[in-house]
């Protein structure tokens, strides 16, 4: 179906340089209670796939290489 995507800052940003998903790491995907993170199969890097973040933070805290940054919404900063 035709889908429109609206520009919005991503809540969860992954640093591709630090992300080790290509080695099989799935920590951030596994700890997310909202199931919003996924691995980009082509690049073998984690990314935020669904805009449903609740800002609970375990993905950022548990990442073994500190590759994950959760950005609190502008409205609340």
């Amino acid at each position, binding site marked *: *179906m035709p*889908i429109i995507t609206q520009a919005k800052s991503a809540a969860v940003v992954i640093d591709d340089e630090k992300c080790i998903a290509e080695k099989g790491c799935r920590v951030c995907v596994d700890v997310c209670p909202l*199931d*919003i993170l996924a691995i980009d199969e082509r690049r073998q890097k984690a990314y935020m*796939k*669904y805009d449903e973040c*609740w800002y609970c933070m375990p993905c950022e805290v548990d990442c073994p290489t500190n590759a994950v940054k959760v950005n609190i919404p502008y409205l609340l900063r």
Partner: protein
Amino acid sequence: MHISEIGFCSGHSASGVWVDEQARTTIPGLYAVGDMASVPHNYMLGAFVNGGIAGADAAAYCAATSLPEYDAGDLLVEQERVLAPTRRADGLTPHEMEFKTRRFVNDYLEPPKVTAKMELGQRRFAEIREDLDHLCARDPHELLRALEMQTILDCADMAAAASLYRTESRWGFYHLRTDHPETDNRNWNCHTVLYKDASGRMAHAKRAVDPFIVPVAAAEMGAYHQLRVKTPAAAE
């Protein structure tokens, strides 16, 4: 977070799934825990304890119960219902349908509750239910949201029906009905229970309130009647 969370989701309102002390629902083997059952809103430690009690009891139930026979046809029908949104290439997204449902909860069900508005709401919910044939999911995550959206629609229907059944006002603003502004302890100092009747339709029953485990002084029972909430004039 969503627009209609306050006063709609069980646990955040004066509603929820009926459970006993072991978190058993009225269906043997089915449990309900957390703030949709007996844990107050935002009470995390209580939720952990409640989950532990329910888990232990459920494990004991499973150990003592052998798997029953089931109808393979029923299973296929349910599988098809669950997977239906994945069979469509075009239609409505789970987000669109959930947002409209919650928007109507806000517009038609939120207090002060007006009978005519809630009946309008029921008709609008029925229209959304007809649109479920267009609900579309592209991947497992969207299917999860599609199924959750259908449950939210059920909750909206239940909230409307239960609110219309209780023809009085109670709990301050929570259940303030413009056309029944008085608290009626003679008829409504009780729980109200929703259930499915023999034809599968929603039906109502009253259930007596058990004596309090911890006695509450009469002076402490009046808090809801001391709220300075204006009672709006009936609109109809």
